[in-house]
């Protein structure tokens, strides 16, 4: 199934990426080449096969570990905001969020 420039635009928008017109052309070509490869998957019969989300699950069921409900993380704002582009009074500044 071939991708169209519309698909590229939609995906780029979802991913918050901006492609120049010449880039769109190139990416379109590359992705179409890629999806020809991906089409091979259709030939494999996967009826009744469960997806393998966690590799360790092959050996038996894996279960999420649970930790005790203790608030042990201290205030680490300063160190965490050291690489922040824009901070004022402890808040991260961004262009105004319109609801």
């Amino acid at each position, binding site marked *: 199934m071939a*991708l169209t420039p519309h*698909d*590229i635009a*939609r*995906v*780029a928008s*979802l*991913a*918050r*990426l*901006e*492609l120049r017109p010449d880039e769109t052309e190139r*990416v379109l070509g*590359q*992705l179409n*080449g*890629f999806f020809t*490869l*991906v*089409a*091979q*998957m*259709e030939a*494999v019969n*996967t009826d009744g*096969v*469960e*997806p*393998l*989300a*966690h*590799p*360790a699950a*092959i*050996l038996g069921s894996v279960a*999420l*570990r649970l*930790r005790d409900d203790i608030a042990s993380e201290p205030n*680490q704002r300063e*160190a*965490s*905001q*050291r*690489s*922040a*582009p*824009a901070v004022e009074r402890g808040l*991260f500044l*961004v*262009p*105004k*969020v*319109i609801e």
Partner: protein
Amino acid sequence: MSANFDLHDLSVFDLAARLAGGQVSSVEVTQHFLKRVKNEQLGAFLAVDADVSLAQAKAADVRLAAGERTPLLGVPLAHKDVFVTRDFPTTAGSKMLENYRSPFDATVVNKLGIGPGGAGMVTLGKLNCDEFAMGSGNENSAYLPAKNPWDLSRIPGGSSGGSAAAVAARLIPAATGTDTGGSIRQPASLTGITGIKPTYGRCSRYGMVAFASSLDQAGPMARSALDCALLLSAMAGPDLDRDSTSLDLPVIDYATDLIAAYARNQGAAAPKYPLKGLKIGLPRQFFGAGCAADVLQAVRAALAEYEKLGATLVDVDLPLTELSIPVYYVIAPAEASSNLSRFDGVRYGHRAANYTDLNDMYKKSRSEGFGDEATRRIMIGTYVLSHGYYDAYYLKAQKIRRLIAQDFQKAFTQCDIIAGPVSPTVAWKIGENKADPVANYLADIYTLSSSLAGLPGMSVPAGFATSPAGGGMPVGLQLIGNYFKEAQLLGAAHDFQMATDWHMRQPGGSV
């Protein structure tokens, strides 16, 4: 200092012994390597800080003086730049994270480092890699390409290209790498060093900049299986408090048995067939027309050595080997597209200088910060997860993934270890494959399936490619083990390395 050798020719094991024996101090060793690293021309390092390294070396010397004798104390290493560090910037090879300073260290960094509870190694700096670990040649680094010490016009492999180049050129005795689809094994193969990707979940992913969460694994890269075993013993282990995918398995000492085997080998009691009883499975699909003839030649020669050591070679079948390419390149980009969403210019990382509103800020920051390959993979990943395509692509790929893992289990009923080439070719020329990124994906064919299954895999130097195209470049032998069988892999590699000297060869013109 004896004129017969330089410190950089020593293995991790030997360096540690000399440090423990008081013949050299960690400060001296560190200074020696810092000198080699300074002005290096391989593009291996992205960050170096002599003051930080020497302070760590001094601390190591204090521990040595106090009588501590642990296997890695005072030995220098460097970290692939996807491990976050407080003392050095972390870029993950991307402009997105230029000058980013993490407030915490990765668990693997802590386990190897000089801090409390760590193995006491000295960090020499951060190593170049493909952007966000996406690539097989280190050409996708946003900063500079890395070069193969065996031929400076060729890539060292990727994504742990800087790690491989630095170790091969003896700029450092060991390095950490990460392997998602082959990114430890392939550069190790292409630069003639040893590297191992352990079972998924064996090493903590806390502090590793995430690429594909269900595939990423940390592992050591060094010049011998023994050195890798020393590092892996320190790196591996449960991180139950911080990584929910970390396996709750006891920490294993991988090195002691290897050291004992080495000692045994020196004496009259050296076994003639140390690998007697070991069945090595050779997948038909790994030895077909897709692999360069001279690569196969070197691999087969290495396998013949294994037979001499007592191993038996059997044929096995991994029918979905080719399918592993689309399966991997659907799953990994899907997970990556989500993992990379946090790079939005809000809390850290690159923010565009000019934008009109919030959405524009997102788009410009991300487009400016990400390179072509990262952009491509985010696009693929977003597409295969999007409404209407999820079942046909992502879900389908995860189902085939299970079939691939089951195929390995079937194969392991007939053999103990699976072997074959790591890469269908030797290292290619820088710039040669840039035009067709999909061709690059195809070159991952031998490493992807074991990554998808979560199995441990190694690359062991096995010889050189003798054809004109091969240019005398290194060829690695891949060993794939069943779950948790890192010790068996390292043992088999170690026995091979005691009988051969491919792993001791040096590139002619380096640094």
